[in-house]
């Protein structure tokens, strides 16, 4: 169970999956596309968490399981650990990754907006809006993976992600 593939192949496949679901399968219903992508991530997370926990002893409580996600699970997936873990001790955890690998290829659109009165069309979505929407589609897969992994370890939760400053990425989960 230890064959390897190039990382670019993985990234290419994930990009293609997100774009296929967004543009071909559910072009008019982005919410459904998001749910399908998240469901794929859920199953992958289940399988991965089962696979990566064979060698180590089991977890005695929630915190240990979450630390496992931050350290071992993340380093298996992305070759690095989570940079920052915060909690409010009442069930909400925030994971922060300062350089989320799967989003490093996304270009940050920093062109100045041209306010030309003759061409300005207020009803069309602004370029920033569309970029943000497209990028957020890519976050459903990792959110699904984390939700699947935690569910398999016995912690049902809701996961959401936030990309206010690329390439950093914050993931919140609420138990």
């Amino acid at each position: 169970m230890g064959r390897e593939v190039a990382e670019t192949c993985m990234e290419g496949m994930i990009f293609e999956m997100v774009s296929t679901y967004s543009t071909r399968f559910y072009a008019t219903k982005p919410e459904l596309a998001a749910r399908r992508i998240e469901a794929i991530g859920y199953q992958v997370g289940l399988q991965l968490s089962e696979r990566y926990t064979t060698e180590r002893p089991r977890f005695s409580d929630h915190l240990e399981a979450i630390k496992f996600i931050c350290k071992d699970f993340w380093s298996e997936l992305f070759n690095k650990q989570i940079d920052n873990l915060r909690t409010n001790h009442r069930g909400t955890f925030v994971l922060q990754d300062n350089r989320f690998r799967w989003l490093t290829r996304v270009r940050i659109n920093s062109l100045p907006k041209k306010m030309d009165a003759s061409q300005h069309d207020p009803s069309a979505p602004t370029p920033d809006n569309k970029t943000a929407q497209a990028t957020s589609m890519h976050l459903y897969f990792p959110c699904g993976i984390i939700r699947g992994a935690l569910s398999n370890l016995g912690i049902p939760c809701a996961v959401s992600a936030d990309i206010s400053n690329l390439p950093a990425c914050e993931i919140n989960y609420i138990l």
Partner: protein
Amino acid sequence: MANTACFIIVSRNDIPIYEAEVGSAPKEEAAHQHQFILHAALDIVQDLAWTTSAMFLKAVERFNDLVVSVYVTAGHTRLMLLHDSRNEDGIKSFFQEVHELYIKILLNPLYLSGSRITSSHFDTKVRALARKYL
């Protein structure tokens, strides 16, 4: 070499997903009794599983001269074996190998987690492992 052995895999929702009589001299009339003993041991396993972080819980219960040994995975799937041998290392290796096989079944994208394992390939391999280790 064990004369009687019954092996079941119970998912996290307490649904048995795989059962097999793997002893070398299977007795037909005792087969349902073996199942009954294993299911009755589930309560004890539940309590014991939270007290330790090891995967292999050794003998959790005795019935006449049969012993129930249990192996719990991180996803709370329980592999339970009813046997009359005392070969603990062999049983531990058996559980570890079946765990690997179980993960391979899980990796199948068409396998719904928590449903019965119907693969005959898995069945053959488990019986071969039982002959080898028990």
